[in-house]
């Protein structure tokens, strides 16, 4: 879900930087108030582990495919929302700088889409309310806790991923990058991320449940008072039940989707005229580069030009992609090639 720089207009990128910057500032302030310098190495080590852990493939039972883990929920359940958010910020920065995953300008948007939703929304609206609720009382204290961890992780991952995917659509559409209508784009992104979210949620739950079994005190908001009571919760049974629910829901959704071919199909085949109208309205005035230099040199050009009377039907196109533009682009490519050749030549000379 990492957005590349190319998908954003500068104004949208700047807005997202301000939003993510504010969240980072608040988190730093809260962390400073806690005054626990020992937390910094823990955050760094956990962030590094989550970074590497996201590369592990987990086999999804019954299918040939595999899934990954969700970092935001895991970090905020272990470190708290603020520290988790900062760790995610750092992970995303490193991914962007060293692995080319995302982009320097899109970093603000990526932090918002993945870290903010994953840590703040995931923790305050999902993890904490569920962990503190009286749900699953019938399963005994420990069994209830486990069921709550599972529910919170799966719900958290699904909802935060949906929010993130929706934000990607919103940011890209606001940037005016894609011609894909908003509705169709949403219909394309959300279902894919629903499936991803469910799998990520289950993997994250498995890791958190392991931590709960061995060191429950590490988990935020987990009740560790009644540890001796044996629960009747089984991870395998729950995963099996959840898998059946997923299949049913997935099957139902796909039936619904094919029954109402709105979304993408409608946008692709039924709405072409509207798309045209929009495009025509958009670019009437903005463009067309007037080159004064070209005018003044007109007379000389008339004589020196290779193809003096060569005219194209759309040579006054708003895009600045007239024939001279095409020729010029080829020249630019030629100059680039020349730089490469010259660079190679000088380097060889230096070595010799």
């Amino acid at each position: 879900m990492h957005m590349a720089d190319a998908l954003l207009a500068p104004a949208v990128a700047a807005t997202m930087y301000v939003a993510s910057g504010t969240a980072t500032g608040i988190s730093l302030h809260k962390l400073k108030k806690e005054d626990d310098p020992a937390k910094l190495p823990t955050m760094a080590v956990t962030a590094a582990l989550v970074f590497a852990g996201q590369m592990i493939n987990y086999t999804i039972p019954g299918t040939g495919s595999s899934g990954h883990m969700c970092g935001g929920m895991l970090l905020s359940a272990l470190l708290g929302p603020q520290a988790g958010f900062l760790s995610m910020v750092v992970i995303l920065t490193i991914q962007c700088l060293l692995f080319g995953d995302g982009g320097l300008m899109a970093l603000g948007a990526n932090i918002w889409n993945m870290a903010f939703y994953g840590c703040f929304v995931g923790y305050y609206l999902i993890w904490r309310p569920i962990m503190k609720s009286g749900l699953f009382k019938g399963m005994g204290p420990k069994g209830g806790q486990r069921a709550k961890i599972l529910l919170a992780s799966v719900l958290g991952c699904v909802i935060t991923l949906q929010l993130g995917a929706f934000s990607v659509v919103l940011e890209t559409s606001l940037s005016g990058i894609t011609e894909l209508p908003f509705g169709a784009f949403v219909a394309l992104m959300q279902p894919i991320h629903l499936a991803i979210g469910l799998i990520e949620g289950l993997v994250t739950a498995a890791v958190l449940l392991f931590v709960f079994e061995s060191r429950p005190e590490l988990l935020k908001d987990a009740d560790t008072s009644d540890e001796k009571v044996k629960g009747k919760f089984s991870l395998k049974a729950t995963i099996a039940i959840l898998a059946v629910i997923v299949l049913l829901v997935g099957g139902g959704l796909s039936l619904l989707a094919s029954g109402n071919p709105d979304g993408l199909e409608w946008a692709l085949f039924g709405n072409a005229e509207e798309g045209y109208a929009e495009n025509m309205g958009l670019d009437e005035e903005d463009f067309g580069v007037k080159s004064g230099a070209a005018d003044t040199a007109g007379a000389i050009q008339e004589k020196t030009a290779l193809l003096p009377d060569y005219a194209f039907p759309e040579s006054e196109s708003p895009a600045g992609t007239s024939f001279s533009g095409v020729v010029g682009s080829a020249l630019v490519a030629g100059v680039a090639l020349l730089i490469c050749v010259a660079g190679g030549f000088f380097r060889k000379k230096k070595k010799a």
Partner: protein
Amino acid sequence: MNKMEKALHELSEMDELAAGASPIHRLCAPGKLLTTIAYIAVVLSFHKYELSGMLALLLYPVLLFQISGVSVGSFFYKLRIVLPLVMAVGLFNPFFDRQILVTVGGVGVSGGVISMLTLMLKGVLCLMASYLLMATTPIDVLCAALRKFHIPGTLVTLLLLTYRYIGVMTEELATMTEAYHLRAPGQKGIHVSAWGSFLGQLLLRSMDRAEELYNSMLLRGYHQHFHYAPVKPCTWKDGAVTLCSIALFLLLRFCNVAELLGGLFVR
């Protein structure tokens, strides 16, 4: 080579590249950071149909690649992550925007095709810029530059510490994955019975080790301040290079050089 080993390889490759000694490597880091941000901002500000105008901006990274001697091969390898999403978004443009904007050799090219190409070029140029920054600047020097821009020390220290530990953790997990797969031949990923314990065990061990790490940091004189790389002061030369570069970007932004060059030959 599994995914994690590839990531380790990529990390060490970036480290090696950044340790070079070309004139670009010697430029001061805050200047390079500013130039990169300005370049990306200028690239992004081009409209979706201004393909020819944007093409001239390709010259800048090409020049930098040549002066710095950074290999282009590993840059293309990095494109595999960025391009798919950009292409997925841009691929629909030709379907929706069919207005013919330019005719080349009798073949009409629609606005959608041009905007798709513009989008892809934007993706490549932006990645080139940040790749060149990282390939010519070691991460600790960049962190020191971030501090100069008043990015909070806690965040920068966290960035540097995490970076150091990413190598350790990725190596550990790569070994674990290798060992797991040797004992479970023919299996694609981690079996559901080990979903929690596989990462969980390493997680618990690492969180314990973080405590020892903090103690050792204290013993070495850590006092909530981190000493970054020795920072080379920015000279007037660095300033001039930065200013000239930014002025060049603005010039290329407002004046379509490709169009002008073409105009000399075609009327």
